[in-house]
């Protein structure tokens, strides 16, 4: 293989105190692809993303980002290196305006002109945010908040974007919109995407490769199409 993976986990263990949530996760993400992690509730999907982002410290194993070991890098440094997460539940700052939420995405950047241009660009990508730029984040609807969360993450100029359950609690039509946007970000902006989803069908259709996580371990990894046609997956995650 000639291309280096942009994000690589090698046998990562982590957890909350005495509870072990991850028991040896290994995965690779190549530049430019969309990778999906699917699994049931409590399988350790979100924990994987939080561990990559340094919010939860990995107890064992190595996390490489762009060839660099990032286990010990503090969480707030990673976005400046181009690794950004849209966490589960979106976590918009509820009492800051849409505009301020977007400005905070660019907190580490000093190029004010470019930031303003990027904010305009977000408004073009998500026109609804432009209409509500003076509104507080907490007053937006779920779909709007998800868009804001993605737009805010894009403001950090990420190379790799980690998306945690972007479909959570949204109406199907909005979910489709969000996934279209994800594909667009991947294609047009060249952002590598690692996607965590419970909705396996959606995720595997969007992604090129997929990993299946069960109780803190990777049980399957393959091309997305292969996973989609795997009868076990179809039974366990696609409800057939």
């Amino acid at each position, binding site marked *: 293989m000639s291309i280096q993976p942009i994000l690589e986990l090698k046998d990562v263990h982590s*957890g*909350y*105190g005495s*509870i072990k*949530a991850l028991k040896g996760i290994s995965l690779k993400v190549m530049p430019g692809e969309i990778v999906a992690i699917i699994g049931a509730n*409590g399988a350790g999907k979100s924990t994987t993303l939080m561990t990559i982002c340094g919010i939860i410290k990995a107890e064992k194993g190595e996390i490489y980002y762009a060839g660099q070991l990032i286990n010990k890098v503090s969480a707030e440094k990673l976005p400046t290196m181009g690794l950004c997460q849209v966490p589960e539940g979106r976590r918009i700052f509820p009492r800051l305006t849409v505009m301020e939420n977007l400005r905070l995405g660019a907190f580490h950047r000093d190029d004010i002109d470019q930031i303003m241009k990027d904010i305009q660009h977000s408004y073009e990508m998500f026109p609804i945010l432009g209409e509500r730029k003076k509104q507080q984040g907490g007053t937006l609807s779920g779909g709007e908040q998800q868009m804001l969360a993605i737009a805010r993450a894009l403001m950090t100029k990420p190379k790799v974007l980690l998306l945690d359950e972007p479909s959570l609690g949204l109406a199907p039509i909005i979910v489709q919109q969000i996934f279209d946007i994800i594909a667009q970000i991947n294609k047009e902006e060249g952002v590598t995407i690692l996607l965590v989803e419970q909705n396996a069908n959606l995720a595997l259709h969007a992604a090129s490769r997929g990993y299946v996580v069960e109780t803190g371990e990777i049980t399957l990894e393959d091309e997305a199409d292969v996973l989609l046609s795997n009868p076990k997956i179809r039974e366990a995650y696609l409800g057939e």
Partner: protein
Amino acid sequence: MIQEFKKVWKQYTIGMLWLLGLLWPLLGIHSDGTMTFQTTFTVWTYILAGSFVCLMIYVIKGSGSLKFVADPVSRAAGNIKTTSTALPTWIWLAAGLIVALIYPQFADRYGTDVAISVLLYICLGLGLNVVVGLAGMLDLGYIAFYGVGAYTYAILNTVYGLGFWVCLPLSALTACIAGCIVGYPTLRMRGDYLAIVTLGFGEIIRIILNNWMELTNGPNGILGIKSIGIFLPVFENGFTFEHFWMKKLQLFYYFALGLAIVAAICVHRLNFSRVGRAWESIREDETAAELMGVNTFIYKLLAYAIGAIFAGLAGAFFAARMRFVSPESFTFLESAMVLCMVVLGGMGSIPGIILGVAALIALPEVFRQFESYRMLIFGATMVIMMLFRPAGLIPAKRVGTRSEEKEG
């Protein structure tokens, strides 16, 4: 070893330089327009040396070089732990009771005096534990109920001449009423709003005690309170009872011991009763408790009332023993002390509270000869204890195991 503790040493150096920077303006700049460095450096060097020794011990212990000392100690501790769990609880209780009963025969006057304070604070700590530890409401004005109990006895005794035994339930009753009065408006509040309102009530009661000259004699306090009267059987002319004023310290000790034991039994029984479970549910999630049909209003008020009753009893006893009360004894610092004892010992755990009280009363007594440094050391100890044992010395088993934490 040096590598491992590099971070510790680095932080220590930074901390010490920070301290130097803090001390110098206070000690080195004088109002006559001069600057000196001598005193600052002397004080700083003392602190440096003292903390260096402590840190050295900590580092050596951490690096395992003290194994030959630490191992037997920890093994002994482990042994004690296994025996303590192996033996039934009642043996420990009986042993503790026997020690408590024969203690005054061996202790001198000073020792008994300290022991009485300890028992009194145990009673207060257990009462506060009902409010903070069981029902989960942060109460920063608890000592006010103690004050109400003490003043009830003081006033009823000096003005109306009522005896201690009549006043004891009355003190409990007034404290209980005060508890309900404080409790009622605060029941709608949650978390830290509750804390400031209880603090406010505590201060209000203290200020009233301080300023209502006609009733409480203001800051001068009330003097000449009668001691506890008891009837002792006398066998001189047949069998009669004779009335005595309790003067002997040992009698006070036994009375305080009785009070503390009653409080401990009550709190223990309450904790494992239906009421205790209701409090627990309110503590862990008030909204959920309400939805499950727990009448949070009544149970929260009950927690205040019961906490206040223990404080009232302790207060009446305090007034009878000191034979003098003044608002000075009921300041916020006292409330903070009692809260400290509860949290330091371990919220919700009765042995923990007893240990916490013993630690906080005994510790300042040890430093009695460094009178002016006493409170400084007390404050520092509080911080250090919290840093190393934030859950208390003996954490209660039922506190802090929320379902969501378990599942992770």
